[in-house]
């Protein structure tokens, strides 16, 4: 999986859909960089149901805090519990080791509400400009 295969939300979460209809979710490199040193990630538990753009958890860095929003709706089937002990993986490897949850999607068409990587990159440049 590479960043250009992911779809992005305006809240800076990415989702990558695998062949089984399961979405892998994390935050973008841009989001990780803006937060700085991540010190704590609070994630849902397996079995929780997510709605698209609904609250998924919270992330804390030394000097910032942000809510996490699920880019797609569905049921949480796996959580990256390694982040409990190694939250710095979100900074080091936001698309691989720093993934957050896996979601069994309710409705794959929700992906159409998200941005491609190039659209997201433009979105970031525009919002920085403002």
């Amino acid at each position: 999986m590479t960043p250009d295969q992911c779809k992005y939300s305006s809240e800076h979460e990415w989702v990558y859909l695998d062949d089984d209809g399961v979405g892998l979710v994390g935050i973008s490199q841009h989001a990780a960089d803006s937060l700085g040193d991540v010190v704590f990630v609070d994630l849902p538990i397996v079995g929780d149901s997510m709605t698209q753009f609904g609250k998924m958890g919270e992330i804390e860095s030394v000097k910032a805090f942000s809510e996490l929003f699920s880019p797609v709706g569905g049921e949480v089937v796996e959580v990256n519990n390694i982040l409990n002990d190694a939250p710095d993986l979100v900074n080091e490897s936001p698309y691989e080791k720093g993934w957050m949850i896996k979601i069994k999607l309710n409705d794959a068409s929700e992906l159409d509400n998200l941005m491609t990587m190039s659209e997201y990159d433009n979105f970031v440049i525009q919002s920085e400009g403002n």
Partner: protein
Amino acid sequence: MSSPFTPNTEEHRKKMLATIGMDSVEDLFKDIPEKVRNPNLNLPKAMSELDLRAYASELSSRNVSAGEYTSFLGAGSYWHHIPAVVSSIASRGEFMTAYTPYQPEVSQGTLQVAYEFQSMICQLTGMDVANAGMYDGSTSLAEAALMACRVTRRNKVAILNSTSPLYTDVLDTYVQAPGIDLEIVEEGHMTLGDEIACLIVQQPNFFGYLEDMQNLANIAHDAGALLVVSVDPVSLGMFNPPSDYGADIVVAEGQGIGVPMSYGGPYVGIFACRQEFVRQMPGRIVGKTLDTQGKEAYVLTLQAREQHIRREHATSNICTSVALISLMMTVYLACMGKQGMRKVAELCYHKAHYAASLISAIPGFSIVEYGTGIFFREFTVRCPVPPKEVNQSLLEKGIIGGFDVSEYSENGLLLCVTEMNSREDIENLSDALREIGES
């Protein structure tokens, strides 16, 4: 006007205004709408230090104070001995006139003290973690209730009716706005529903007696609620720490540990809990870390819980740890240490029991027992006449009496005995009560 606190003279001001490019000080205030600018200010004239000291001294002498009188008044604020070292350290300018330690490189003194404080609170209460201090015991209790609601995601709190009514009032102020229901429950008639976030118990209770904590802990935990204990820290010199009976959050008023009564403040609230709730705690927390050279040092940590980062999502709006008062408590605990804390507790215990034994032998007076009936340094007496009258008579004999609890217990007077009360004081109290009973 010249004052010793403003070094710049009229000459300085002129020079500075010239640099700024203004003709007068008035010009700097032009943004204030003219119709409200420069109002009349009706305040007394300045006083010299000599005159003011005399005036303040005169005001203070109009108060009846412990020491001048002997005192048996407790109910949340206690008269205890404070070693001279405590005020000597706490009045050092390096501690007293520093700001909150946001710049750790120039605040290691304050930060290291806070770490010592947190450590000693954990050791005293048996809990896993403690914060650096809250405003006082009552607000600490209210914040514990809010935290229990966050942790359990429930919206109702139960408080045992033997808890201080003053604390219950403060809790009531705090829970109304967030829409949390407050239920006052009675031991023996208690069924906690599955919507209760926590059961709040004071140990020893407001009337002086130990509660059966193991039983109350079971009731709370069976309902999936947390057990919040408001404990008397001086009692922990001899009694079991709350961790022994399964407390989830422990709060306390720290005043009895090295802090003068000062008519109600400043005090310090103790707040400790189990490790798993640490990120839900309110208040400042200090942690140990390393500097860029690998040397150990201390720093404010877990700050993402707090208002300056989380704003409307913060665990609390608090941004003080009452650091100077936590320092006093820390120095006191260092001085008293393992042996002294035990001894203070035992002095209170035996003296209170001596007082109770004398008073219970006076015709018309009896000891009223609540909870387990085992008491520490306070106990409730039923008087033959309204306690207000008893206190008035005591005052005439140079004794500050107890706290009138007749609202909760018929002709009830809550008496407190500490190491400050000598045998003679206690016998004088007993003699005075006997006279009142006979008249």
